[in-house]
């Protein structure tokens, strides 16, 4: 057992907390609970928030420098020796630069490594396109056995980190830089392979993950005032996907809109589309909202989401268009 650490996760609904902050907090706690937890970072511990763990457990923290491939390879070795490594960097480098190491050193070796990647998507913001990975879900989904999770808020991120620590196998968790409102209360528990219905509705199923879930909640409120009943599903578990919940809802409403801060190719929308096409027995109206196969640019995180067609108004418009209401 490690040292005792403060547990301070009393987030209130609406508090603005980045998912990476919840990650740093959960890691710190896990470090005290399980001495097999080790953390690796690639010169970004101040940004990824692994610095909290590093300070509390310096012997179990390895700064690998700006060398993500080696970091993943070392993580695999640590895992094969019985440790539970959490390997962090920006998502662009963890999923992009180091993909082949995640695939061959980690996944193919069934190594129990948790790749926790921060600063994903457009909402890295001002750093611009070189850092705005919008391909990571496609890259990680395609690796056999890889679990892929996109938490919507701090509470879900916090819960997901505990969940994957208790799961044996490779996982990828996509975390964000920007602060997002807390949507889930402290009793919320994330489960691998489970989506959660935020509220039921009969006109359309809206399925979102990550940064888009708070926006979907906002859009649903506007639509409710206009009499459009949205069934809102938060699907943090991209893989395995909760196709049972999703297909059941799609079959009920007959209409699905997916929302993600990711390229339109290869992310949540494609995963949902495949599940529905294979499993739904009726025709479902379907639309994906995401980044329209273009690179991003510098700007404020939320302005970027708006600019690339992921605003609350865009969601409202697409729902109206799909439902014909």
């Amino acid at each position: 057992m490690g040292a005792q650490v403060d547990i301070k996760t009393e987030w209130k609904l609406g508090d603005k907390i980045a998912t990476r902050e919840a990650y740093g907090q959960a890691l710190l706690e896990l470090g005290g609970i399980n001495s097999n937890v080790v953390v690796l970072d690639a010169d970004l511990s101040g940004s990824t928030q692994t610095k909290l763990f590093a300070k509390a457990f310096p012997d179990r923290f390895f700064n690998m420098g700006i060398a993500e491939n080696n970091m993943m390879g070392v993580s695999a070795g640590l895992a094969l020796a019985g440790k539970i490594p959490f390997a962090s960097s920006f998502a662009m480098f963890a999923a992009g630069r180091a993909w082949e190491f995640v695939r061959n050193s980690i996944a193919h070796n069934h190594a129990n490594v948790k790749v926790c990647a921060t600063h994903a998507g457009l909402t890295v913001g001002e750093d611009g396109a070189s850092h705005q990975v919008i391909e990571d879900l496609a890259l990680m989904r395609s690796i056999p056995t890889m679990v892929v999770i996109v938490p919507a808020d701090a509470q879900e991120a916090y819960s997901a980190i505990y969940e994957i620590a208790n799961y044996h196998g490779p996982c990828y968790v996509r975390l964000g830089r920007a602060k997002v409102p807390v949507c889930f209360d402290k009793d919320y528990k994330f489960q691998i392979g489970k989506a959660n219905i935020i509220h039921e509705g009969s006109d359309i199923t809206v399925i979102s993950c990550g940064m888009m879930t708070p926006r979907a909640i906002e859009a649903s409120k506007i639509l409710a005032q206009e009499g459009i009943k949205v069934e809102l599903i938060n699907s943090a578990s991209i893989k395995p996907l909760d196709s049972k919940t999703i297909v059941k809802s799609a079959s009920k409403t007959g209409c699905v809109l997916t929302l993600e801060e990711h390229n339109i190719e290869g992310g949540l929308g494609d995963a949902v589309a495949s599940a529905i096409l294979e499993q739904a027995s009726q025709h479902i109206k379907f639309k994906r909202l995401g980044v329209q196969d273009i690179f991003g640019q510098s700007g404020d995180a939320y302005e970027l989401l708006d600019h690339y067609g992921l605003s609350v108004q865009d969601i409202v418009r697409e729902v109206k268009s799909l439902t014909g209401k």
Partner: protein
Amino acid sequence: MLASNYNKLEIFKKAQLIRENALKMIHAAKSGHPGGSLSIADILAVLYFAPHLRYNPIEPKSSDRDILVVSKGHSSPAVYSALGLAGFFPIEQTMSFRKLGSPYQGHIDSSRVPGVEVSTGSLGHGLSNALGFALAARLDKSDRRVFAILSDGELQEGSSWEAVMACSHFGASNVTAIIDRNRIQLDGWTEKTMALHPVAEKFHAFNWEVIEIDGHDIDQINSALIRAQELSKGSKPVCILAQTVKGKGVSFMEDQVGWHGVAPKDEDLAKALEELKV
């Protein structure tokens, strides 16, 4: 206990048996990598049969074992042959090499074959994996040692040097990297394809201990491994730069680029087995 059973002739016989079996496997599979299997046969024989590795074929995952990561996963025929001779499984089984359903995959696979610690094949991974084992051993206050056999060609991968840098940064003296310097890669001589020379100086510059040996001289391999064990008490990782000959032991395969990844035909095998008789 290490190297206490050292018997040069016996080890040489084991090396020749590794070579024989590896070539039989590749012949049966009609594909595989003879050249790089033959070049590490003597190194594997000394590691497993001097022995310098602590291992237990009855309990392959025993906690008091040492770790051998074979980063050049294409030398699988030599690795499987050594493990078979060491008693991890009946060596006859290896004749299913590369066939559908066989545990003996083209590149070594830890989930299918006892004694294989890490699945490799994609070059430039193994030293990173070895460092992970080494850091875990340090946390566990274990005296476990971690060996990695690397090809010379894979030193062209940038990730190899990330790992070389990290091993010395962490003072991982429990890591011993053995470089199979056979000077040939798939497309030809390493020095023509992408020059590696000077390898020893590069490792020195990265703050490693370097021991240069003839990788086919049983005595030199044994002495280097004894020295590496002494150095493991220090603060630097150890590189054994083993000068080797691709295809070593079979006259018509030696130093021949063409035998990197081609299976011997019936007559080639017969001739090779004749040459390998002890």
